[in-house]
């Protein structure tokens, strides 16, 4: 197993590119309506035209509290020079992590198209390189230490626009990324705690909920590299890593089993069949509601999968749940149910289940 940790910690200093204090919104402010467009640099490998289309539809509302934001945050004034206090703290952390401090801090732009930054990008700068952390299981490398600006926090949706508050935007963050040499959950826990300790000993980092954020990269042999974003509870990091490792191991077991059953590559045609007519007079509230809204119900025959969809891949999480999450995210499907489950709990009658089975195997 290989694990890497990325920590974002808010520094106890004023904002990075203006003279606003890093404090929560209080009192009056302005409300600003903005649109954003796609520009170069953010397209990467995404089809440029599609990205442009996506951005064109985006509308954003920004609350600009007077006590905690200025024209810099609203993107109506160029950024000031970088806050020297924030740089000092970052340099101190670099030295504690035995990193080489760069000769000159270069500001780069990371494109952000979700509106959380009024300018359409986040500014980030490398402060230190090639640091290390000594642990009970050997040295863990810290290739890069960056200082960057916090994004604005989302407040919700309003009239089709995503609404943000500018109080958080521009607060200074230090980003510490380890290389993937952490060996297991316990080790990850140790690294996270040690890094947290080093940050706190400076006495110059913000404390409290939301001021530190950990992202984990977990990869197991033969499995995928999975990123777990936004772990806020330090105590749970070891457990999260172990759970992820177990999940990947179980999924690999399922793959092996399927390959055995299929005698090689898993391929069953992936044919979706419209089953809506079977459920036209259903007693299932779930289906009735969906059909009433004009939704449709589809089925797919998955030969040789019997017994696998119920396999537990994590606490309270089955292989079926895993597939369901993918379907929801990538295809906009409302949910998945399968024949390894007790279908009566959805109010589906045995007759309906048999009809569906027949239709799927006949097609």
């Amino acid at each position, binding site marked *: 197993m290989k694990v890497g940790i990325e920590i974002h910690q808010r520094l106890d200093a004023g904002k990075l590119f203006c003279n606003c204090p890093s404090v929560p919104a209080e009192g009056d402010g302005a409300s600003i309506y*903005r649109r954003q*467009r796609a*520009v*170069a640099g953010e397209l990467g490998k995404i*089809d*440029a035209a599609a990205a442009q289309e996506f951005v064109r539809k985006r509308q954003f509302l920004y609350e600009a509290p007077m006590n905690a934001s200025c024209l810099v945050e609203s993107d109506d004034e160029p950024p000031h020079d970088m806050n020297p206090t924030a740089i000092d703290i970052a340099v101190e952390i670099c030295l504690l992590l035995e990193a080489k401090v760069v000769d000159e801090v270069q500001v780069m732009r990371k494109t952000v198209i979700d509106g959380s930054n009024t*300018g*359409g990008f986040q500014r980030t700068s490398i402060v230190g390189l090639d640091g290390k952390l000594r642990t009970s299981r050997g040295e863990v490398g810290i290739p890069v230490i960056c200082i960057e600006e916090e994004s604005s926090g989302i407040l919700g949706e309003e009239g089709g626009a995503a609404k943000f508050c500018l109080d958080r935007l521009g607060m200074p963050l230090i980003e510490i990324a380890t290389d993937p040499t952490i060996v297991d959950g316990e080790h990850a826990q140790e690294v996270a705690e040690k890094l947290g300790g080093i940050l706190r000993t400076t006495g110059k980092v913000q404390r409290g909920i939301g001021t530190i954020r950990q992202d984990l990269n977990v990869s197991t042999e033969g499995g995928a590299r999975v990123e777990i974003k936004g772990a806020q509870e330090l105590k749970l990091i070891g457990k999260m890593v172990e759970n992820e490792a177990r999940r990947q191991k179980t999924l690999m077991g399922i793959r092996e089993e399927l390959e055995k059953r299929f005698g090689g590559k898993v391929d069953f045609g992936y044919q979706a069949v419209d089953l809506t007519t079977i459920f036209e007079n259903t007693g299932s509230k779930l289906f009735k509601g969906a059909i009433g809204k004009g939704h449709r119900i589809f089925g797919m025959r998955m030969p040789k999968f019997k017994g696998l969809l119920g396999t537990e891949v994590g606490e309270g999480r089955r292989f079926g749940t895993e597939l369901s999450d993918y379907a929801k995210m990538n295809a906009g499907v409302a949910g998945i149910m399968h024949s390894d489950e007790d279908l009566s709990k959805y109010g589906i009658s045995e007759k309906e289940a048999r009809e569906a089975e027949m239709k799927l195997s006949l097609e």
Partner: protein
Amino acid sequence: MYSHKVSERLKGFGITVGDRIRVSGKEGSLMPKPETGDPDCIVIKLDNGYNVGIHYEEGMAIEKLEGRVELEKLAQKEIKFDDRKPVVAILSTGGTIASRVDYRTGGVIPAFSAADLVSAVPELANIANIKGKSVMNVFSENIRPEHYKYMAGAVASEIAEGAAGVVILHGTDTMHYTSSMLSFMLRDLPVPVVILGAQRSSDRGSSDAAMNLICGVNFAAHADYSGVVVCMHGTLDDKFCHIHSGTRVRKMHTSRRDAFKSIDMKPIARVDYEGGKIDFIGEHPKRGHLELSVASGLESKVGLLKVYPGMRLEQVALFREKGYNGLVIEGTGLGHMPMKGDESSDENDRIFNEIRGLAESGCLVVMTSQCIYGNVNMNVYGPGRDLQKAGVISGQGMLPEVAYTKLMWLLGNYEKEKAKAMVSQNVAGEIVERREVAPDFEKGE
């Protein structure tokens, strides 16, 4: 576009854009040439994703290799002429208000041609048939009298060719100088001429460039208006632009996107970003069948002088010494300046005498106010009357920058006596006849 010799050479090897080639020891895919840049420079995308330009030399070895990248999706938007839509000419003068993403290279290039502009802001094609032209390429702070002549000439020829309106892309710093100067130079203008720019650079997703451009092109194409205007964000929101009179507009903020304000009057109109609705705010001149003429004479020996407490004689003396024909004074309050000394110093007396001497030498000296808002009145206090007696002409509440461009233009096109008389006559809406009682004068409301 690559130059003829480069294109021919590539064609000779059977190489088309996207093909993998080797030039001068570098391997990569041939990229198309953006319309800007050295046409003799071959651009290839290396395997690490970076583009490099290799200058083509006669006889250079070019080798076609196996493989190519598909660039079809990345082609530039083709513009079709739609005869139900009016023609709008977009003249660029420099800066990068409408940079566009070059899909094929991932780089940002300034948009100058119509195809570039429409690729950067596709909505433009729905508003009008766009004609694009680069008139010059200077930052607005570097503009000199000759540049005003290029712009006026370019506008006149686009109108002669049938444009329903003209848009000028301009740096914002001196946009209000240009808008007033063109207001004077373009006589009997039959259509709208819209000057616009961007306060926030167009390499950021949040730039104000696209909205200003969309609203400005819309106004140029469809508004029943004639005259030179400025079109910029009305507020901090991406909701609507204000259309300002070319002679009553001023940049009032260094960086906000709503930096341009109509001074001592309401904006002429408001143009919605979404939906494109144009609402006129008051009376305004309509489109007409006028015969446009360009009064292009400009006197360059005109100065603009801000006065201040503690000022010294030598700053004033320069104008008579160097033979200036016009001077706009940015005075204090209602139109005053240092003119009377006391026992501590008689420098102010000398300054006043110098101004009197300058006026007597035949230089037109015009008084405006550094207050920006409000009228000039040199009859209220004794010093103002003394200045008038000394030959200083009231600027009638003209904005200092506008009085400056007007004086350059008057002295370039009329005899001195005529020019002097015209200083206080309204030529292009530069003189506000009455100022309404607005509770908040900065908003005009």
